[in-house]
């Protein structure tokens, strides 16, 4: 059952894969119980007196009737069996998925912020550390430890086809892990109400073969290239002077950390935490009027004059 990118009945990794059969079991038991109860009710009701609406109940005599406690005993004992199975299966599944892997191949620090995801890739050499936003790349087949931080309010990290939810809570670090056994793009969504734009706080996990992943990491580690054209150079000063109040572009004077890191902005598929596809039209629209597209988010409308906008875009497009 594919059912869309956030459906978790199709899974692409061992975490989620453990949960799917248990989910199906519980769904089938649940549906079965409902059908049985409906059938029992139907059978019981078929004996009902057809009622003309004159409601003369005293015409139907009261009787003490059979002692039906047997029904209760049978029903409860019968119900207990699927419950016990569910309990045991739950414990087994829980043991399999709880707790981070003993030997993660990769460790990420993900910070939930209103309303985007800050992703940090650490490295032994501090020069190699980099950050990105809303798009997480991982190598296929490798268990990845994700350390979750909350910068402001509680968010929840959920990429259904790879793993269940774990909250990002300010003041503590929660651990979760994901692993993709197939390459692909897996959609994630914040799953704890976090304010006005909770609805637009998605992220993507891109699982790729190890070689492609290493190539991506290498590219991300590079600082931004110097601008090659005059327009791009003008754009760079604008970015440093204005965008740099909140954003960072490594290798330039734009060094603030309250907004997403833009060093490799154009390598990402979407903007504004999954709200828009990242193409030049949307990027221009976002810069000029983010409040229209994601009302209440923390980026003010820029309202650049057309030549300034063109220059800015010229520079930003070089951030691949």
């Amino acid at each position: 059952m594919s059912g869309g990118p956030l459906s978790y009945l199709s899974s692409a990794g061992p975490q989620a894969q453990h949960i799917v059969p248990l989910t199906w079991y519980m769904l089938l038991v649940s549906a079965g119980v409902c059908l049985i109860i409906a059938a029992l009710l139907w059978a019981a009701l078929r004996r009902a007196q057809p009622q003309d609406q004159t409601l003369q109940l005293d015409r139907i005599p009261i009787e003490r009737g059979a002692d039906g406690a047997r029904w209760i005993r049978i029903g409860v004992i019968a119900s207990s069996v699927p419950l016990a199975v569910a309990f045991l299966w739950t414990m087994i599944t829980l043991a399999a998925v709880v707790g981070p892997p003993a030997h993660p191949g990769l460790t990420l620090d993900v910070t939930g912020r209103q309303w985007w995801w800050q992703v940090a890739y650490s490295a032994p050499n501090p020069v190699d550390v980099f950050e990105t936003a809303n798009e997480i790349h991982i190598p296929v087949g490798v268990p990845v430890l994700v350390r979750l931080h909350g910068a402001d309010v509680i968010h929840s990290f959920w990429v259904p086809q790879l793993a269940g939810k774990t909250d990002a809570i300010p003041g503590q670090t929660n651990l979760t892990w994901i692993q993709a056994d197939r390459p692909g793009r897996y959609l994630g969504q914040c799953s704890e109400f976090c304010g006005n734009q909770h609805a637009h706080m998605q992220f993507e996990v891109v699982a790729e073969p190890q070689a492609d992943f290493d190539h991506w990491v290498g590219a991300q580690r590079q600082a931004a290239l110097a601008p090659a054209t005059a327009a791009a150079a003008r754009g760079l000063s604008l970015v440093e002077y204005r965008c740099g109040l909140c954003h960072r572009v490594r290798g330039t004077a734009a060094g603030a950390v309250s907004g997403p890191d833009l060093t490799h902005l154009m390598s990402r598929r979407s903007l504004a935490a999954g709200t828009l596809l990242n193409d030049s039209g949307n990027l221009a629209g976002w810069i000029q009027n983010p409040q229209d597209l994601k009302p209440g988010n923390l980026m003010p409308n820029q309202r650049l004059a057309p030549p300034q906008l063109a220059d800015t875009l010229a520079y930003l497009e070089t951030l691949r």
Partner: protein
Amino acid sequence: MRLPEFRTPNVGVDSMEHDARLLRQWETTPGWMGILTTVDHKVIGIRYIVTAFFFLAVGGLEALLMRVQLAGPNLTLLTPDQYNQLFSTHGMTMIFLYASPILSGFSNYLWPLLLGSRDMAFPRLNALSYWIYLASGLFLYAGFVTGNGPNDGWFNYVPYASRDYNPGLNEDFYALGMVFLGISTTVGAANFIVTAFRTRAPGMSINRLPILIWGTLTASLANLIVVPAVSLAFFLLWMDRQFGSHFFDPAGGGKPLLWQHLFWIFGHPWVYAIVLPAMGMVSDGLPVFCRRPLVGYSLVALSTVATMIFGFGVWVHHMFATGLPGLGLAFFSGASIAIVVPSAVAVFAWIATIRLGRPVITTAFLFFASMILLFVIGGVSGFMTASVPVDWQLTDTYFVVAHLHYVLIGINVFPVVGATYFWFPKMTGRLLDERLGRWNFWTMFIGFNLAFLPMHLTGLLGMPRRVYTYADYGGWGILNLVTTIGSFVFAIGVLLFFVNVLKSLKSGALAGKNPWDAPTLEWSVASPPPAYNFAVIPTVASRHPLWEERIGSEGALSSIDRGMMLDHGKETIGTSALDAQPDMVLEMPADSISPLLLATGLSALFVGLLLKVWVLAGLGGAIALLAVLAWLWPRTDLREREPAHG
């Protein structure tokens, strides 16, 4: 005048003169004074019911607005802030201002009549609990109508609820309003507990109590212990917001999860408190339409208590994704699965009662019988979320929204509507219209299932909760549209219910004492009952006093027409806790202004705190203290003090 300390009550039968005397002692003062000072549980019960249904309608309208916004992807009927206030206020309204008060209202009205008593144990406290409910409801809605409604969900997690992220008055209205409302819930719970244990008809031992008594009593015992948790949580939030304390903010060493623990330690027992009394109503009403006693009475009574006891041990299942250690998760998961068992007892008891009886289809019966199916659907979706790893996928999606609406509408609203069809004749002397009732039932039933059954699928397809809009992933759009249509059909059903009530008040068929030929004590008095309920105190010998001659009883018969007269003042009988042996004559208070005065003082106090006008708060507090002093001032007629010496 000598007031004897001991007395042997006269035993006799009713007479016109006796009725007239009782009426003088019990009837509410006429006119405006009576409206403001009455302590009659029947009047208070009806006020609760009417107010709660009003909030049901308002909460329903809020839901319809939300459903229009969600009918399709990326709609812009509502701004995010408007939507967030709507969903939060909808939850708050339904859970706090409808679901519990409606059951308090029915219980308030019915309990003394079911128990063979003339009023609740504390009539003035009863009046107070209503006035505070009304005042706090108005307080909370004053926020909403001024654009300052709660906006962080009914569960109100920090840090989003803190001042840094929520600087307006929204959260202060919610926090203070909830502390205020908590007073009503607490005193109401105390009243039910003492009434259940000390003011029953002689012979009504605990194994003869109607299940509604078991349900509301269990809920009240729980509320007494857990409401302080949520009141404290809201108070500490208000302190963090307004006085710079650090209970919840990590920067100051506070713990966001402390909020969640305190809230859910309250919240989980609360959701059982808002369904167990309703289940009791089904357990008492369904057998009447099956023309036989309830199957497994003792098991059902015990399962009511067992459900609540389990209910104290599952709160962490609302917090499975917060990063708690695995062993703790395993315990709470197990308990959450185990709690299905006592619920199953009730379900099978009801089905067996229908199967082994002679069911008669009336509108009340339809609501009581259909709730069994809705209960089970809601129960199994809860069973699914009880499993931690499954919950890690299901939680915070529309699957949970489907679950909570099946349990709340299925186990609260449907029984309540059924209870209205059942007890409306007793309260008003008229029957609700049966034909309109069928339309009412089928519209509600079809509409509800059309709206909420597909929602399970919407949740399995991953749609998260509490989003003001969505993109059309894998069929969300069409499913949401179906839900929206269903919700409007359901709303029409609710409207038909209100129309039936209003219409039948004026022109319903006259009911008489016992239109359903039902077994319990309330059906032995007139419809509506006189102010004093019972002219003579009945003596009870079985669970079904009015059916004894037909189904036989173990020993003697109950006595309805002959019993203690208790007419030397405004009196009723006090009885022992387990066996209901008479052990004192209770002198009951007359109408009093103290409850309204106290509620007014407290209102001024809370408004003062909200606006930080300390003079107003101080004044309110002073009025409240004086009202309490006047209230508790020992009175000779209530035998709280010796009469003045000569």
